[in-house]
């Protein structure tokens, strides 16, 4: 087969896998979010649809699709319809440049674990995220409603303000890696000193802890999450920029928000947390972390299935236990280890950051609008600038 046909087939397969996994994950992040927040607040969370509410996302999707899509009479139709499409398009497109793992070789053909290996990947992500503002701003404006207009205005002001510290925080680890390609950045964080991995946040000459914190704060603002969810502040703006949206167009904004969350967590993982490199070296047995975690989860499930509290736990928990034990078994197959372990570490880090997002939503109250702006311009921006200067200074000193 000619290389271009192989490329076409490989890209189509990767596209299908990434699209399926991402869209399913988007639905289930919402389930995880509801469950985690519920447990933080000592509630049950969704528990009616399926065991432990696991089919709730499916029910939500069906509900959103079958609901009537209301087109309010006062809206600017073209932009009203285009806004959620734009938002979700820009949110989904940036996942295509993110590398999930090392390369994979099937029948002599080598393919990278990402859709597009762009040598300016970081810039592509910044460009796409800067275009993502239009969806929300236009949606707010086209709805022709004072609440949604204020929501849209707040969102664009907030995203412009926080893009600056975010870009400056991204620039610092780029100086250490000396490349704009996401794959090269991850490869630059390979290896470790004794037990400490050579990730950017631990790295010599200047640990990027401050960049990481600044990036995460700005990421919360860029994705309009609590404590920076001013564009959809329920107590003052009803629902903010998506007041007038219903059915699938509402779901579009929803998907865009969660997809942006996934993207920023992936970028944080790649830039600061060493991408798919393990937390401790392979020679100390980091390859056995995944089977150990899955086996522990499986055994806990089976234990609670035997000593059940609720009657249906007797059936559901052993099933989950067997599934988890099966996953542990898969991670022990020698031929799959070099493919699965990078993906495991990458997904583990991304999931941890996503959990932090949810955790903070359950913990913190919302900022006031003037606090939000003052924080971005008077604190975050100068700190990011000083951090970039220091990083540049130390990198220049060493090289």
């Amino acid at each position, binding site marked *: 087969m000619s290389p271009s046909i192989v490329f076409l087939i490989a890209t189509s397969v990767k596209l299908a896998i990434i699209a399926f996994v991402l869209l399913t994950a988007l639905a289930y992040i919402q389930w995880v979010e509801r469950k985690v927040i519920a447990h933080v607040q000592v509630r049950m969370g969704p528990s009616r649809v399926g065991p432990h509410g696991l089919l709730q996302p499916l029910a939500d999707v069906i509900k959103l699709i079958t609901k009537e899509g209301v087109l309010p009479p006062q809206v600017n139709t073209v*932009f009203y319809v285009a806004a959620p499409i734009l938002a979700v398009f820009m949110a989904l497109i940036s996942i295509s440049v993110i590398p999930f793992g090392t390369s994979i070789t099937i029948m002599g053909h080598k393919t990278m674990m990402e859709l597009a290996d762009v*040598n*300016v990947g970081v*810039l*592509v992500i*910044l*460009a796409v995220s*800067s*275009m993502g*503002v*239009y969806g929300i*701003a*236009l949606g*707010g*404006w086209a709805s022709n409603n004072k609440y949604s*207009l204020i929501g*849209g*205005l707040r969102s*664009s*002001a907030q*995203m*412009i303000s926080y*893009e600056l510290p975010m870009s400056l925080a991204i620039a610092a680890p780029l100086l250490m890696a000396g490349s*704009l390609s996401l794959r090269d950045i991850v490869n630059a964080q390979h290896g470790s000193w004794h037990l400490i991995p050579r990730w950017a946040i631990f790295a010599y000459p200047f640990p990027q802890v401050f960049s990481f914190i600044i990036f995460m704060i700005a990421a919360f603002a860029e994705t309009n999450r609590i404590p920076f969810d001013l564009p959809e502040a329920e107590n003052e703006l009803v629902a903010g920029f998506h007041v007038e949206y219903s059915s699938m167009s509402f779901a579009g904004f929803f998907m865009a928000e969660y997809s942006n969350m996934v993207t920023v967590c992936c970028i944080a993982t790649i830039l600061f947390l060493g991408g798919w490199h393990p937390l401790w070296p392979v020679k100390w047995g980091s390859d056995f972390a995944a089977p150990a975690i899955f086996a522990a989860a499986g055994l806990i499930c089976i234990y609670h299935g035997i000593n059940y509290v609720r009657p249906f736990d007797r059936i559901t928990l052993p099933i989950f236990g067997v599934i988890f034990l099966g996953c542990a078994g898969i991670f022990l197959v020698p031929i799959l280890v070099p493919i699965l372990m990078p993906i495991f570490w990458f997904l583990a880090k991304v999931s941890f950051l996503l959990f932090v997002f949810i955790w903070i939503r359950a913990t913190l109250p919302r900022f006031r609008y003037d606090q939000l702006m003052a924080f971005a311009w008077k604190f975050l921006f100068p700190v990011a600038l000083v951090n970039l200067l220091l990083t540049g200074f130390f990198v220049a000193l060493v090289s």
Partner: protein
Amino acid sequence: MVDLLFFGIFAAIAVLCAINVVLQKHPISSALSLVGVMGSLAVLYLMLGGVFIAMAQIIVYAGAVMVLFVFVIMLLNAGIEVRRGRSWMATIFGVPALLGLLGVLACLLARWFPDAPTIKFGDFTGGGAKEVGYALFTEYLLPFEVTSVLILIAILGAVVLARKELD
């Protein structure tokens, strides 16, 4: 061949969006058409090998600058502009005069630069971040620094204007 096809598509989009900027009655539609122009220009830069410039074009112009435009238009709540009648001179002679001007320009360019080489897509490879940064800080250092001073002056001016309003 594929390059030429893509060039044709995005050049056409750029021109159509540029015409649309003028034709649209609503400021928001015009601003979004301008975003379309910026975006297709970025694609053209990308095809010519200016990878870094293409991304900077999207981040700075299509992203930051145009978002600010849209923001201001939304904030001022500018309505649909009222179209006044045009003079008959413009209606009759507008398009022919424009075409004539373009023809004169093309003719002059062909006469002044008769041996200008034809650009092929993929010939130019020095458009990465490293090359651009190196050029900015060696060959074009003075223009670069002068531009940054200019921007600093503009920021100071904005601060002064904003402070006056407070008093």
